[in-house]
C-alpha cells in the first residue's frame, strides 16, 4: 500500500504541475471575459519546446546550461520531502525541513548565477531581485516551520505537516491562521505570482523570474518552465496542509481530495491575479517582511 502511495506521489508530482498553470490561466481568462488557452496548454508548450533546437548566447558558460538542470532536480527532490494530502512523504527524516529549504536555495543560487552568466543587465536585475527577496521569505518560512514543529512536536516535514490534526485545533488556531497568511505570501512570492511578480508581463524592468530566463530557449526553457510549475505544486502542497488539513477515511478519496484542493488553490491564485495589480518593486520587500512578521507573531503567540 505504501509503495502504491509513493508511486502515486511521484506520478502526481511529475505530471500534474503544468495543469496548475492551465487552471490559473483559465481562471484569469474567465475573469477577463475571454475563452483563454486550453487547460493543457502548458503541456503542449513543453512538448513543443522539447522538440526545438538550442540558441545559446556567446557569453555563457557551463553555468548557463547547469542552472535549469540543478533547479529542476532540487525542486523535485524537495517535492519528495513534502507529504501530499494525508499521505506520508516518500522520504522523511529528522531535519528534512531544513534540507527542503536549502534545496530551494541551491536552485536559486544556480538560476541567479545563470542570469548573470548571460551578461545582460536585465537578467542581472532579475537575479538581484530574486536573491534579495529570498532574504525575507526564508526567515518567514522558518518561522512557519518553527510554529509547525512546536505544535506537532516533530522535526520531520511529514510529522510537522500532519501534526496539527493531532492536537485540539482551538488552542493553536490563532498562530495557525497567522502562519497560513504568511505561507500564502511566501507561496506567491517564491513562485513569482502577482502581487510580487507578473508571469505574463514582457516589460523586463518589472519582472523577476521571467526576466532571469530571457536567454533560455528550446529544451532549456522547457526545463525552466516545468521546474517553475513543479515549484508551485510543491509549495502549494506544503501550504494546503496548513490551510486545509481535511481528510477522509479511504486512501482513494484522500487522493481525489488532494487533487481537488490543489486545483482549488490554482483557482484562488488565478483569482488573485485577476483582481490585484502587481506591487511597485520597492514595496515588495515590505510585503515579504509582513509575511515574516505574520509567521513570527504566530510563533510568539504560540510560545508566549
Amino acid at each position: 500500500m505504501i509503495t502504491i502511495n509513493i508511486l502515486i506521489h511521484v506520478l502526481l508530482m511529475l505530471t500534474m504541475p503544468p495543469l496548475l498553470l492551465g487552471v490559473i490561466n483559465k481562471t484569469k481568462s474567465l475573469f477577463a471575459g475571454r475563452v483563454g488557452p486550453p487547460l493543457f496548454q502548458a503541456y503542449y508548450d513543453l512538448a513543443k519546446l522539447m522538440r526545438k533546437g538550442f540558441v545559446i548566447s556567446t557569453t555563457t558558460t557551463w553555468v548557463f546550461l547547469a542552472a535549469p538542470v540543478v533547479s529542476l532536480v532540487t525542486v523535485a527532490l524537495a517535492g519528495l520531502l513534502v507529504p501530499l494530502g494525508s499521505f506520508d512523504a516518500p522520504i522523511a527524516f529528522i531535519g528534512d525541513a531544513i534540507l527542503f529549504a536549502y534545496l530551494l536555495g541551491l536552485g536559486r543560487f544556480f538560476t541567479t548565477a545563470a542570469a548573470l552568466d548571460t551578461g545582460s543587465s536585465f537578467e542581472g536585475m532579475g537575479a538581484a531581485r530574486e536573491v534579495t527577496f529570498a532574504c525575507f521569505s526564508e526567515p518567514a518560512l522558518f518561522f512557519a516551520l518553527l510554529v509547525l514543529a512546536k505544535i506537532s512536536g516533530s522535526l520531520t516535514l511529514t510529522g510537522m505537516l500532519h501534526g496539527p490534526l493531532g492536537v485540539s485545533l482551538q488552542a493553536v488556531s490563532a498562530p495557525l491562521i497567522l502562519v497560513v497568511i504568511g505561507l500564502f505570501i511566501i507561496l506567491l512570492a517564491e513562485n513569482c505570482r502577482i502581487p510580487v511578480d507578473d508571469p505574463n508581463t514582457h516589460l523586463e524592468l518589472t519582472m523577476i523570474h521571467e526576466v532571469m530566463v530571457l536567454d533560455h530557449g528550446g529544451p532549456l526553457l522547457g526545463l525552466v518552465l516545468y521546474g517553475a510549475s513543479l515549484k508551485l505544486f510543491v509549495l502549494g502542497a506544503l501550504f494546503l496542509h496548513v490551510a486545509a488539513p481535511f481528510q477522509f477515511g479511504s486512501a482513494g478519496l484522500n487522493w481525489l481530495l488532494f487533487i481537488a484542493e490543489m486545483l482549488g488553490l490554482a483557482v484562488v491564485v488565478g483569482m488573485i491575479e485577476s483582481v490585484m495589480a502587481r506591487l511597485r518593486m520597492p514595496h515588495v520587500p515590505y510585503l515579504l517582511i509582513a509575511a515574516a512578521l505574520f509567521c513570527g507573531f504566530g510563533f510568539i503567540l504560540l510560545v508566549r
Partner: protein
Amino acid sequence: MTSLWWILAGIVALLSSGVPALLGPRRSVIRQRLGAALMVVGGALGLTGLALALRDPRPASLDLAALASLGRFSVAVDPISIVFLAPVFVVPVLGALYGLGYWRQSENPANGRKVSFFYGMLAGSMALVVVSRDGVLFLVAWEVMALAAFFAATAEDDLPAVRRAGWIYLVATHVGTMLLFAMFALFRQATGSFALSPVPSEVCGTGLASGIFVLALLGFGFKAGLMPLHVWLPGAHANAPSHVSAVMSGVMLKMGLYGIVRMASLLGPGPVWWGAVLLVAGVSSGILGLAFAIAQHDLKRLLAYSSIENIGIIAMGVGLALLGRSLNRMDWVVLGLGGALLHVWNHSLFKSLLFLGAGAVIHATGTRQIDRLGGLAGRMPRVTCLFALASVAICALPPLNGFAGEWLLYLGLFGTLGTDGGVSWPTAALAAAALAMIGALAVVCFVKLFGVMFLGGPRSGAAIAAHDPGMTLLGPMAALAAGCLVLGILPWLTVPLLDRAAENWAGGGAATIPPILSVAPLSWISVMGVVLMGAVAALGLPLRLLLRRRNVASAGTWDCGYARPAFRMQYTGSSFGQTLAALFAWALWPVRHAPQIQGFLPTATRYQGDTPDTVLERLILPIFHMAERLLPRLRLLQQGKVHIYVVYFLLALLALLLWGRLGN
C-alpha cells in the same frame, strides 16, 4: 603520550620553516622551497600526532618542570585541541605550497623572506596556543601569533593602506591581549594557579566566573572578530598577501573561538545569560557581517566580512551549547558544539579556498575591484570551478560541507522548542529564523561575487588578459575543494571526534551526552547528497546528448533591441547588492558622492559610493582622534629628565606606603 611528541615536533618544524629563507639570499627560490618542505614535514608530523591522539582514549599531556624558571611548559592534547589543531596542520601547509607560486621570493625580494619567516612562525604559534595548558605559556604563544600575523600581513609595508591596516590590527590585538591579561589574573584568583584546569566547584556560577567569562568573550572576541570587535579584520585581511589572508581567516580567527570554547569548558556550568549573550553576538555578527560584505567593492574585504558572518555562526553554536549546559539539555550541547566545531573545519576549508582563489584572480588581473572584473569563467576555467564550489559550500547549500555543519546547528535550535516535552527555551529558536536569513544573505553575497567576477563579459581590460595559474596554485586549491566535497558527502566521518569533544567540553560530572547520531541522522545527509548529485548527472547527461544532436546556434545575449550593448553595461556588483544595502543603510551608513544632474545635456560627471566600516570610522577612530587631541596635555609629566622620573617613583612608593598603612 607519543602523539604529543609527534605534534610538538610538527610545531617545531612549522616554527622554524622560515629560518632557511631568512638566513639565505633575498631572491633564493631554493630556500623558499626548503621552507615549504619544512612546512609539509611539520604538517605531516602534526597530522600523524593527531591520528595517534585520536586512537588514544585519554588526553595526552606533558609538564616540563625543568623549565620552571621560565614558567611551566605544560602542554596537552584533548579532543577539543584535536579539532582546532587539524586546520593548523592543513591550511598553512597548503598555503605555503601556494606561496611558492604566488609570492615567489625571486619576484618579491623586498619582503619575500619576511613573509616566509613570519608565515611559519604564525602557523607554529597557533598550534602552540591550542596545546598549551598554562596561562603564561598560552599568552606567550598568543603574542607570538599576534605579532607574526602582523609582520606577515604587512608584507607590502611601503603602501599606506597596508600600514594603516597593520596599525589598526596591532592596536586591536593588543587591546584584546590586555583583556586576556586581566582574565588570566582573575582566573588565577579562581583556581590558585595559571594552569588551565577546571575552576573549583565553589567558583562555578559565581560573579567571579561570570567576570572571567565576560573578559574571555571580549578578549578572544577581538581575535575572532565578533561583530563590534571586528574593526581590524576587513583591512588586515584585504591587505595581506592572499595565502596569509587564507591562514588568518581560515585558521587564526578560530584561535579566538578556541579561547572562548576552552574557557567556557573550564568555567563549568554558568547562568543562562552566557549562552544568550553568545547567541545574540553570533546572530548580529552573522547578519551584519553579510550586510557589510554585500556592500563591499573590494574582493578581499568582502571575503573578510563574510568571515565575520561565519564566526557568528560558530558563536551561535557555542552559545547554544552553553545554554544547553546551563539548562542541563545535553542534546543541545552536542548539537550546538558539534555544529560549531564542524563549522570550524568547514570554514577553514572553504574560506581558505576562496582566499586562494581570490589570490589567483588578483595574480591574473592585478585588481581587487569586483566591478572591474567579469567573464573570467572563459579565461580561468579551473579557478572558476573551484571558486564556484567554494561559493556553494559557504552558502551552506547541499551537497557540500557548509550544509552539514549548519544542519546540526538548526537541529539544535529547533530542539530548544522542547518538541520532545523536556525543558524548552524557545527564545533561542528565534536564532533559527535568523540563521535562515543569514543563509539567504550568503546566497546574495556569493552569487554577486561569483557571478560578477567570473560570469558575463569582461568589464575592463584587466579581466581580458587573465588566464589560469599553474599547478603550484591550483594544486592546494584542489586539495581544499576535495575536503569540502568529502566533508559534505560524508559528514558522519567527523562524528566520533565531535562526540568526544562534546563530552570533553561538558566535563565528566555532567549528565551523559547523547551521541550525535542519535539526535541527528547524518547518514541521511550523505544519502540525499549522493541522490542530488546522481539526479543532476542523470538529467545533465541526456541534455548533453541533446546538445550534440540538435541544432545549436550561437548568438549574442538578447539585448532588448538596443543596438550597441557593451559589457560595461552589465549589472555590476554594486547594483546587485543595492537593494539590500539600502535596506541595511541604518547599519552600513554608506557614503555616496552623487552629482546633481541638471539641464538637458549634462556634462560628464562621476558617481562614487563606498561603505566604510561603521564601527571603525564612526566610533573607534573618532575616539582615537579625540585622545590624540586631549592626551598631549599629559606630556607635561614627561620632561625627559631622569631625576624627575625618580621623583615619580618616590612619590608612587610613598603613596603606596600610605595606602597600605591606611588600609590596615
